[in-house]
């Protein structure tokens, strides 16, 4: 991490690290590094630097740092024994995060959140006002009762029975799930757990859960069940997914923003060509029908054919005459 760290960023880090260590005399080196979010090597480099610093250069004026034998001791650092006040961004992250939590439906800790917020405001002063201009809404699209039930199931390791809507296949499904966590990602709530039907971990969008029953059955997931890495979003393409190329008119340019696409090429006239990967092309067929010709499948041809066939069938259901077979476009 230190390769890009500026001198001032490192100073800020050290000014937090010193009081933290002073109050944890003898902490295990590896533990300290892990809690401080740095490598052991970095920690030792930092301690070597601290050892050379003081309010003067007489031995009794210098900070004392020891880390031989795998334990860290820092003393004679009274001048910086308290951390620097929270910076603007630091205060902002905690205040906005707390306010977001306060908006979570059915969260039992509301009182705790309010107490923490009041203390934080007292500790930050002016930064609190600036933080109020940044807002987050994560309360959307889920009933408080459902969220509370799901959380309780995670906490008590109970299996749940779900009736779950899969809109891309237009199916309502039934399945037993061993819940692992409730996560909110980009304003949507998900229940992640081991799905006995799929024999794999699955993310279930809470707004698509039609019913959730907490069963009186132990719901500890199998030992090899792994939480997904959600850093890249909920969608993870696989190697054997179908590669699709679409041409979007200007009116459908939003598709490139909305769906996870691999590439976007915008032409001079504002139309664009996008490529994406997907395991299931059913949702794409639906998207192409509703876009009414603003998006065209360049490949694969089977998808283009499926769009044509489905549109014809639907038009027949309306008794809408098939427009004259197209000559070109």
């Amino acid at each position, binding site marked *: 991490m230190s390769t890009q760290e500026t*001198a001032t960023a490192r100073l800020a880090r050290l000014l937090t690290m010193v009081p933290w260590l002073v109050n944890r005399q003898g902490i295990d080196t590896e533990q300290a590094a892990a809690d401080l979010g740095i490598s052991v090597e970095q920690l030792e480099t930092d301690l070597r630097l601290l050892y050379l610093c003081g309010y003067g250069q007489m031995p009794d004026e210098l900070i004392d740092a020891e880390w031989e034998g795998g334990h860290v001791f820092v003393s004679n650092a009274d001048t910086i024994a308290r951390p620097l006040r*929270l910076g603007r961004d630091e205060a902002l992250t905690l205040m906005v995060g707390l306010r977001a939590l306060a908006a979570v439906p059915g969260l039992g800790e509301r009182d705790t959140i309010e107490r*923490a917020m009041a203390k934080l405001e007292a500790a930050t002063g002016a930064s609190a006002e600036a933080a109020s201009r940044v807002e987050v809404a994560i309360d959307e699209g889920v009933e408080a009762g459902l969220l509370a039930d799901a959380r309780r199931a995670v906490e008590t390791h109970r299996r749940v029975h779900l009736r779950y809507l899969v809109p891309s296949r237009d199916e309502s499904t039934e399945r037993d799930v061993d819940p692992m966590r409730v*996560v909110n990602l980009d304003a949507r709530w998900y229940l992640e757990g081991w799905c006995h039907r799929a024999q794999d971990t699955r993310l279930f969008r809470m707004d698509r859960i039609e019913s959730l029953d907490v069963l009186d059955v132990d719901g500890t997931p199998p030992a090899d069940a792994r939480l997904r890495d959600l850093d890249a979003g909920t969608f993870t393409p696989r190697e054997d997914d179908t590669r699709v190329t679409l041409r979007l008119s200007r009116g459908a340019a939003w598709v490139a923003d909305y769906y996870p696409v691999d590439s976007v090429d*915008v032409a001079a006239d504002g139309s664009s060509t996008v490529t994406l990967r997907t395991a299931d092309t059913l949702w794409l067929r639906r998207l192409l029908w509703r876009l*009414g010709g603003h998006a065209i499948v360049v490949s694969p041809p089977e998808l283009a054919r499926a769009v044509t066939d489905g549109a014809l069938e*639907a038009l027949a259901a309306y008794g809408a005459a098939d427009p004259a077979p197209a000559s070109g476009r």
Partner: protein
Amino acid sequence: MSSPTGPAAKTERLLNLVLCLLYTRRALPKSKIRDIVPQYGDAASDEAFDRMFERDKDELRELGIPLVTEDIGGVWDDEVGYRIDQREYALPDIEFEPDELAVLGLASRTWAHASLAGPAAQALRKLKAAGIERDVDSLVGIEPRLGTSEPAFEPVKNAVVAQQTISFGYRTGGQGEVNARRVQPWGLASWHGRWYLTGFDLDRGAPRVFRLSRIDGAVSPVRRAAPYVVPSDHRAREMIRTTVGEREVSGTATVRVRQGRGQSLRRRGTARGVEGEWTTLQVPFTDDDALADEVSGYGADVVVVEPAEVRDLVVARLRGALAAHRALTGGAA
């Protein structure tokens, strides 16, 4: 240490400067500071030292360190000295209960995967510096996360917090054209998983909402912009909700849904009768186009009976999709 001018030497110099200015009760003159902080001894000349010291002072202040200048009289009347006020420097001594630290921890982790992950973790560490936290097993199993993948997030956030007028290129939804905008930022809000900026658009002379993902290229401060005040009744989320959000329910549509299909419509609608494999549903809706979009997606499994406007919109979409793809599939059906 390694290089005397490298970043490590600079951190050492700045830390020594902070320590001596915090330690002293009386403001120290520059000459004295030069004696105390050994790294200043490396300065090649008085001018070099002056430049270095000026820059160091600015950088400490940027970190939020309250470095003050005081008149210290002395031999020359105009001599000034420097010190850091302990009480202004230190985080106030506020004790957090274990359950409060637990929710603060969760608030901090909300940003763990966003551009503010560093400040969020640092803030929590400062609050926890005072003592060893006891683990509280509340709040397990729940994990809110914020994403800030939009490149414009950092500069826009800074402008909102500092109340700094900015200019940027903005892509409009339909046409994809990029226009230059000058905006007095009012607020920043995440709504349905997307970040929006609210503010006063100086070119259009009216309040506007901007989606961060549509900001194209750099966000620049407008120099010598007039100061402004955020309206006291401004609520960013309210403004976004009314500008880009859903409208009120505008009517009820009658649709026929094939057995086992149209699940999202079944959830919202009320069944009015079954005929063979078709169920008739009444579905409240807000917007003709939005309902037409949804129904078109079901292809032959859902048919709009009324209103006629929505029915026509669905047929138009299906015909458009058919015409666009027929060319590719050779016109055969």
